[in-house]
């Protein structure tokens, strides 16, 4: 029988669907009977889901134009070589 500790140890791979069918079935029968592990699995899955939807940080215009100016200088220098 799987313990809660065993379950938590496999949780990431379980949520990433990267386990073989046999172990997956064992984990599923564990959470069917263990409300705590079910809640942990559910809220961890939702944690990952919420973060996946985050947008990249917008780069402020002044930061971007400094970057582009620096790159242009670098490109010009490289061409001179």
């Amino acid at each position, binding site marked *: 029988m799987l313990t809660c*500790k065993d379950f938590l140890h496999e949780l990431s791979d379980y949520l990433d669907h990267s386990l073989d069918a046999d172990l997956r079935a064992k984990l599923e029968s564990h959470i069917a009977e263990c409300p705590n592990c079910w809640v942990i699995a559910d809220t961890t899955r939702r944690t990952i889901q919420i*973060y996946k939807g985050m947008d990249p940080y917008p780069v402020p215009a002044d930061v971007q134009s400094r970057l582009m100016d*620096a*790159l242009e200088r670098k*490109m010009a220098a490289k061409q001179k070589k």
Partner: protein
Amino acid sequence: MTAPSLAEADEALLVAQSREGDGRAFGELVRRYEGKIFRLAQHVTQNREDAEDVLQETFLKAYEHLDQFQGAAKFYTWIVRIAVNQALMKLRRRRTDRSVSLDEAIDTGEDTIVREVAAWDENPEQRFSRAELGEILDTAIQGLEPPYRSVFVLRDIDELSTEETADALGLSIPAVKSRLLRARLQLREKLTRHFKRKGDDAFAYL
């Protein structure tokens, strides 16, 4: 024959053109990844000014060393590695009293500590405005130890594979996996404080 527009050009082609000295092609690569690099830099340095420097240094170094980029890896994985190194150098400069490394030994006690178990509301994120939610999510990430933070950002926000994350951070695959598990569990716990179903009391577990 019409050339594909820059915005939809294949990444390998853009890299090849950049190597030939095509500044517009490299500009397109910058445009594709600057937001992600900027976010990563802010999460690692936790300092806005440093993150701006890291962003600039990353793309300047990438351009300079473009001939060292092996086509086998993704371009993004390659620049992430540069960005992480630049960000760590900033951290070291700020904390001259101790060295900072993503390889530093981390607490190897229980790898799965769960203190609070509480079910969440159906759609808890709807209780918050977009700005409030962004603040909650960012603050939670900032509360993670740096080695967990960068693994989580690359794996679960940027959606790199375990192998790509290991490659970008110079870590082993088991190290990425164990850090990811801890990061996910710690974030779950931090978010639970905001998202748990009203009326549910936390109870001790394990």
